[in-house]
């Protein structure tokens, strides 16, 4: 018995020392990026495309010698859209000495906001998380770096206004996923309905969002709106396209928020042909016509491999590129500001707050990140399904920016 216990103690001690040893490796001229991803959870359709995009951009950069002489190592953790693994991931990134991290998921971002601030590591949450995080003074280490749901709401209304030639007396239906993220744009929409004089009616779709026949019937046959704004996630966007089309509503009068606007959503609804006219908001460029994507294809070709199939899903893939590119630029700014030395995570945060005029030939919006504005201006594009593919119908714009800023200020006052 005694001998048995001693052996186990020895084993445990050995395992413990091994764990210590493996973490003691440190390399010079290398920076670690933490990156959370969802490749297996409920939003795996996003993660399995977005994350390879992120890795490909970093690989491309490393193959060209890295950023200012530093190679980048990405430590990716699949959080399965669950909160405890996201906490664990953040702590691991911290242990590995990550200078920044990419977050994934709205509840995960909410859970980590405070930790990021305490540990002084910036986290990016493009397209999710709370809209209030655009306020860099309240959330110093959280960076949405893309249009928040508030900005998307403003942009959707502006687009509707342009399409209909005015909003006065018009009827707009808002079809949304019944969770905090889905409800977030409501204050903006209600405010705009009042100031612009249009009638707004909201239609909630309960989770998991695959059953919305009655809501769509209500919209199409009872309410008969002039325009429909949809804000759905997961499988729900394709169901909404199918239902609206099936009930005879013209898709050219529908605009979807950023998580209902991927090629996969449209194809799952029955194909590009069926969804002719469907409008989508985008916070990153769509399509393959960007030099950086061609460089990635060339990189694969040089290695004797075909281009990854994820590249065909350009909406999410390009968002991965956007995320990676902004991470790299933040680090580049930080290294330059320090005269070529390895930056700390706080200096990287400063670097992120000085990104301006970096667009990767139009893949990124003309955003400007400042210490006060971590959203970068809330720019979006509208891409419309036409002739079997997504075409750009409206270039980078900010919808009702002054209204969004007013709400941000009011929200800051409240807390």
């Amino acid at each position, binding site marked *: *018995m005694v001998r*048995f216990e001693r052996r186990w103690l020895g084993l445990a001690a050995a395992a413990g020392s091994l*764990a*210590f040893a493996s*973490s003691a490796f440190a390399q010079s001229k290398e920076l670690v990026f933490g990156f959370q*991803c969802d*490749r*297996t959870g409920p939003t795996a359709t996003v993660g*399995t495309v977005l*994350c*390879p995009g992120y*890795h*490909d951009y*970093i*690989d491309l950069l490393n193959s060209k010698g890295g950023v200012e002489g530093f190679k980048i*190592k*990405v430590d*990716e*953790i*699949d959080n399965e859209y*669950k*909160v*405890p*693994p996201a*906490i*664990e991931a953040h*702590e*691991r990134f*911290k*242990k590995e000495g990550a200078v920044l991290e990419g977050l994934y998921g*709205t*509840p995960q971002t*909410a*859970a*980590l*906001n*405070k*930790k990021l601030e*305490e540990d002084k590591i910036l986290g990016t949450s493009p397209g999710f998380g*709370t809209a*209030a995080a655009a306020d860099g003074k309240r959330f110093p280490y959280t960076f949405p770096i893309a249009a928040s749901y508030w900005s998307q709401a403003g942009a959707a209304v502006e687009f509707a206004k342009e399409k209909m030639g005015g909003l006065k007396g018009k009827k707009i239906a808002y079809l949304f996923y*019944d*969770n*905090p993220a889905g*409800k*977030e744009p*409501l*204050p903006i929409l209600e405010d705009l309905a009042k100031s612009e004089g249009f009638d707004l009616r909201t239609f909630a779709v309960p989770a998991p969002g695959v059953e919305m026949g009655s809501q769509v019937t209500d919209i199409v046959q009872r309410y008969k709106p002039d325009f429909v704004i949809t804000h759905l996630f997961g499988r729900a966007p394709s169901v909404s396209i199918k239902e609206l089309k099936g009930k005879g509503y013209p898709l050219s009068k529908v605009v979807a928020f950023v998580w209902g606007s991927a090629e996969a959503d449209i194809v799952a609804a029955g194909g590009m042909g069926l969804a002719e006219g469907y409008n989508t908001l985008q916070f990153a460029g769509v399509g393959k016509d960007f030099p950086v994507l061609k460089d990635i294809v060339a990189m694969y070709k040089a290695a004797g491999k075909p281009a990854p199939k994820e590249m065909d899903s350009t909406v999410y893939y390009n968002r991965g590129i956007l995320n990676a590119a902004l991470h790299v630029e933040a680090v580049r700014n930080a290294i330059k500001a320090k005269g070529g030395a390895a930056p700390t995570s706080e200096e990287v945060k400063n670097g992120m707050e000085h990104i301006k005029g970096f667009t990767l030939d139009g893949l990124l919006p003309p955003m400007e990140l400042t210490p006060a504005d971590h959203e970068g201006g809330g720019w979006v594009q509208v891409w419309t399904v036409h002739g079997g593919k997504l075409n750009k119908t409206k270039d980078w714009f900010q919808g009702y920016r002054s209204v969004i800023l007013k709400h941000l200020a009011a929200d800051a006052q409240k*807390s």
Partner: protein
Amino acid sequence: MFHREAGVFKTTYASDMALYPLPIAKWTMIGLAVLFAIVLPITLQEYYLSILNLIFIAVVGALGLNILVGYTGQISLGHGAFMSVGAYTAANLAVRLGLPFWLTLPAGGLMAAFIGALVGIPSLRIKGLYLAIATLAGQLIIEWTINHVPAISGGAQASIQVPRPDLFGFVLNTQGRLYYFLLFFAALAIVATLNLMRSRIGRAFIAVRDQDIAAEIIGIDIFRYKLLSFAISSFYAGVTGVLYTYYLGIANYEQFQLGVSIDFLAMIIIGGLGSVLGSIFGAIFITLLPIAIRTLMENVGSLFFSDSELANVVSGTRLAVFGGLIIFFLVIEPEGLNRLWRNVRSYFRVWPFSY
């Protein structure tokens, strides 16, 4: 919990019910206490402490669910929702009234106990799968209510930021400090459950589980004890929710959805229904296994794949390995890890002089 002598030598009820049947058991306990209170926090890095913190929170929740499912035999799919009740109660009290954690924590627990007892009322008429569906409804109703009542949820985001807990001006804001905070409550929950189960109430729970009609005949008030079991179990859940809230600094109902209820059921089934040690094993297993598998596969996989390919391979196979291991452990021992541990122990009880 850990030791037994090589036979049955007990002559009094008191010795039969003792928490420490042998002197060595007491020493093991003291050893464990020293290990967790002094050795680990000093030697471990913050990262490993953070994993332990997650395990401590899970232990409290698993113990609570085991009281209900394992000891009383009432299945519940609403554990996650009860956590959110505790979380939002504590968050509202902490933010609106500025109460300290030692008031909000029991308040969150009591509120969850009250709601839990309400959701438990159908258990008086229905059992088994039917009760599972009734509690599932409870889970969904609570989720919906929090999502749609701004007075509870604090607005469209349905999340309330809470300040870090502080004790006499000492702010618990690092993993190391939170470690002691969570360790204290995990230890308290373990001791409380061990004692509860050797009390009159605990024996009544077990009687209800084994045969509720027989229990009623020997004079156990089924109505009272079933609801009490729901209340106590939900109290633990509520406290788990409060601990989560203080650990993360935010209450958010999306952290307590149906999947969480199922995770906790998985913990106690794998750990062992109706045992305190099983709850602990289950909480450790479910929290640690994905991390362990990932670490292992990253190290092995890097021999075969490049970094960016590896990420895809790891997430896919990790789920398969995780599921496979759960099946494996349940097949070799359907009664859970606790039984497996007991088998090992009873083998060595008479070793090397077994038959």
